[in-house]
């Protein structure tokens, strides 16, 4: 900062911060994290603060770096699947699936239809679970504790369902290259349908409790606005990009699996309830997406082929040794585009290079720009709306 002075903060139109300075003061360095309640893990933000105003915030990563890409050099292709679970630990199914899509593309194998439907169903269930965590923790960031517990109560049902299918609550190792580990249990679809019927009113309840809350709207509307073109330049994806008003969903725009057959909307804020690109829009997109996921799950239940003569591992290769080549494949994760760049030398059963393009990592990279000139409470609101999972940022 060129000039230093005491500040008077006022707000034009309730969101543009106006800073006036007169007396000479110093800026204070405030280390937010790595242990801090609202950095959602071990992110560290080094903020220069002038009173309550953050003049700059520099993110520091790597506290949860577990060398995913180094591990991939010594583990063969199917062995990488469990590692992907541990990247974004809230959306294990989606991570596995994205990785499997990449390897399957490299192997060029055909996937049984029922497997595809199972994958879509478990991934969408996991997407709801992940959004529930995102919305719940966002409530906590803004001081509303109760919605968080409501979210976790409902998430528990999903985790139970996924545990029933895969045997694990969060780190599933369920989606395998070419198939899934097991067929879904008998009556699974019935239970999922029960959950969908149970959960629909709960989405409305959550909407009324949190999203339409006057204070919540006041805290998030117009905060941390990201224009669409800058969002694209930052390669934002998922709910973040859609929050900026770009109708871009890989399930629609780069369709994979059976998504072309399924009917669902891509919710984009219309600027009536929220300012396009602000924290509230991003929250809104997540809230609306849960309902779309419910629609997808219902369609999966009705369209899924029967289990007669079905072997979930029929297309699973005995030995994964792709031909030499490279692939970049991605899937629409709850937090955005999760991509895998895999390079195979054609001889080995281990990838030469496996890079995970993590959505949180990319979304977080805009933090420095977003945080300039915000108040500390707004900074918390912005971090929460980015919805980072540090396991995926650091990998």
């Amino acid at each position, binding site marked *: 900062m060129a000039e230093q002075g005491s500040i008077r903060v006022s707000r034009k139109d309730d969101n543009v911060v106006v800073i006036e300075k007169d007396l000479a003061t110093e800026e204070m360095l405030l280390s937010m994290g790595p242990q801090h309640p609202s950095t959602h893990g071990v992110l560290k933000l080094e903020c220069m603060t002038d009173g309550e105003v953050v003049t700059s915030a520099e993110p520091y*990563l*790597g506290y949860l*770096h577990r*060398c995913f*890409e*180094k591990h991939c*050099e010594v583990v063969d292709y199917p062995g990488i699947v469990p590692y992907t679970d541990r990247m974004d630990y809230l959306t294990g199914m989606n991570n596995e699936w994205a990785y499997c899509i990449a390897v399957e*593309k*490299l192997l060029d194998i055909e996937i049984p239809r029922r497997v595809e439907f199972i994958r879509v169903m478990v991934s969408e269930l996991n997407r709801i679970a992940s959004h529930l965590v995102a919305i719940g923790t966002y409530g906590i960031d803004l001081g509303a504790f109760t919605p968080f517990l409501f979210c976790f109560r409902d998430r528990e049902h999903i985790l139970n369902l996924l545990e029933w299918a895969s045997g694990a609550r969060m780190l599933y190792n369920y989606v395998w290259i070419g198939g899934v580990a097991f067929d879904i249990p008998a009556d699974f679809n019935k239970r999922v349908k029960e959950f969908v019927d149970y959960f629909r009113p709960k989405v409305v309840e959550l909407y009324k409790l949190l999203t339409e809350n006057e204070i919540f709207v006041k805290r998030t509307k117009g905060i941390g606005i990201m224009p669409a*073109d*800058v969002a*694209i*330049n*930052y*390669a934002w994806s998922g709910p973040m990009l859609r929050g900026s008003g*770009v109708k*871009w969903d890989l399930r629609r725009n780069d369709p994979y699996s059976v998504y072309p057959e399924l009917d669902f909307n891509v919710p984009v804020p219309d600027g009536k309830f929220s300012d396009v690109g602000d924290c509230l829009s991003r929250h809104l997109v997540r809230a609306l997406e849960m309902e779309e996921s419910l629609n997808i799950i219902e369609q999966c239940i009705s369209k899924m082929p029967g289990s007669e003569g079905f072997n979930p591992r029929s297309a699973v290769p005995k030995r994964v040794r792709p031909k030499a*080549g*490279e*692939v*970049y494949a*991605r899937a629409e994760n709850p937090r955005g*585009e999760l*991509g895998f*760049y895999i*390079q195979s030398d054609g001889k080995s059963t281990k990838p030469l*290079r496996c*890079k995970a*393009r993590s959505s949180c*990592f*990319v979304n977080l*990279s*805009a933090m420095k*720009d977003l945080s300039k000139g915000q108040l500390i409470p707004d900074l918390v609101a912005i971090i929460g709306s980015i919805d980072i999972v540090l396991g995926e940022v*650091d*990998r």
Partner: protein
Amino acid sequence: MEEGRVLPQSVQQSAAAYAVIREQFGSAVSDFDANETMPFFEVLEAAKWPDIALFMRDHPKLKFNYMACLSGVDYQAEEQLGIVCNLESLGEFPHRIAVKVKCPRDGGSIPTAAYVWHTANWHEREAYDMFGMQFTGHPDLRRILCPEDWEGFPLRKDYRVQESYHGIKVPY
């Protein structure tokens, strides 16, 4: 790829985009590799990479406004390091393409693309962190995932982990 085989539509779109770039930059870019999984071309003159990047982003027929991914790669056999950028045009055109840029293994440097795509900033920092190639002109080239004082570049194929870090035994 055998001759005469009909390429999938997505590869044809990439090839069309590539033709525009080839026309502008000629021998600075390599031939188009029309494989099905990830069609790509290589930038042969690394110094021209920022110009090519800017051209690809801004040309009205290309509009590669979205950098999906930038991966560092170690080409040990060729004594080279490189980056692979997966680009696509979001909302404008359906085409996508990958670009490779390479540099020598020892003390090599690649001009940065962080001013063309903001997202490249952190991706390049990660590539530097893991492989050790320099990105000339990068606004803030520091390690991002490893600690500042970590020795060596972990994803190089000949990487040997250091014995101890601040008195902590590393390999176990």
